[in-house]
């Protein structure tokens, strides 16, 4: 009897895998040449809004010190 339970569990698992793969196989995909162009375009459009790229003045970045340290 335990043989049958094991094999029916394997069947359930195998069926789940097949169902999952069917969902994934049905997906509509796009070519990388198109999607990559979109990624590049997004970066370029957002470039000037990116403080770590564009660099912002020390006076407006709360984490950058406004004064310099003097070693005595």
């Amino acid at each position, binding site marked *: 009897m335990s*043989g049958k339970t094991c094999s029916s569990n394997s069947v359930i698992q195998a069926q789940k895998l097949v169902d*999952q793969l069917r969902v994934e196989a049905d997906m509509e995909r796009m070519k990388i040449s198109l999607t990559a162009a979109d990624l590049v375009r997004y970066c370029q459009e957002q470039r000037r809004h990116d403080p770590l*790229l564009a660099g912002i003045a020390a006076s407006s970045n709360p984490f950058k010190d406004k004064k310099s340290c003097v070693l005595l």
Partner: protein
Amino acid sequence: MRSPRVPEMATQEVQPNETLTHLKTESDTLKTKLEEERAKLHDVELHQVAEKVDGLGQFIMKTRRTLKGHGNKVLCMDWCKDKRRIVSSSQDGKVIVWDAFTTNKEHAVTMPCTWVMACAYAPSGCAVACGGLDNKCSVYPLSLDKNENLAAKKKSVAMHTNYLSACSFTNSDMQILTSSGDGTCALWDVESGQLLQSFHGHAADVLCLDLAPSETGNTFVSGGCDKKANVWDMRSGQCIQSFETHESDINSVRYYPSGDAFASGSDDATCRLYDLRADREVAIYSKESIIFGVSSVDFSLSGRLLFGGYNDYTINVWDVLKGTRVSILFGHENRVSTLRVSPDGTAFCTGSWDHTLRVWA
């Protein structure tokens, strides 16, 4: 496992085995078909498309603040939406809320367990969530009264059957998404503690998760010890896409700001970029000289830079489009375990096994 051949049982025994073989053939066929479909779209590399883009200049980023106070390894941190407060959690069982501008500690909570592996700030800034070896995710409302005992107002929200590895509030303070060593992710209602949806599909511990930017809809990505990154539909619980190209545990996943891609960091010492619409990996960020695992990754605001915290104590900064390393940052004296860019992109914070957090800009 073979059972004795009894005539009246013979028909019943043969059927499950036949079904199994049939299903195995079908799953193999589907996997091959998936690989073929994905390969058809691989008509160009990301860095080729990015050839005409200007290179990045030199990057000078330094530690601007060091947050000291944890008594053991810092395991996780998160920024508040106000861009100055930070919550961090540690192996010592403590969860601390800091003002990163002044480095002052504003709140501290001692958890009933050690190894608090996950913490998150609520969108309102009025609460934090955390958990770890206690297998739970608990929410602590933050009181304006510094003397109030935060532990008294603690609310237990999530219950897993193994450690909590990551947690994140959704768009509001009302729901929390969790991932666990028990191999599942789950969505919870904070007020009632009710399980709203569970996500099954990983074959081993789930180590990380990230929610898609709100404009792109109800999905999230998770990464696990099964080397897979899965994208999930939050409403149905269905895994809608799965990526398995890493060679070891995936420790961190983070969406590209537009929501069309996500990055991952792994114990295989690489970061990778996966394009969701092409349904495949489109870039690998690696160098022969980098042999230690990546613990955490995050993008700069425009998505051009990818920051990775590594187990060799460094932070590597990658040009996402060109695939090259832009900078390497030193400072921590032990593994970098967690890394997040601030909400307005002016800085990023790292947490380390050296007990400290650093803010870089």
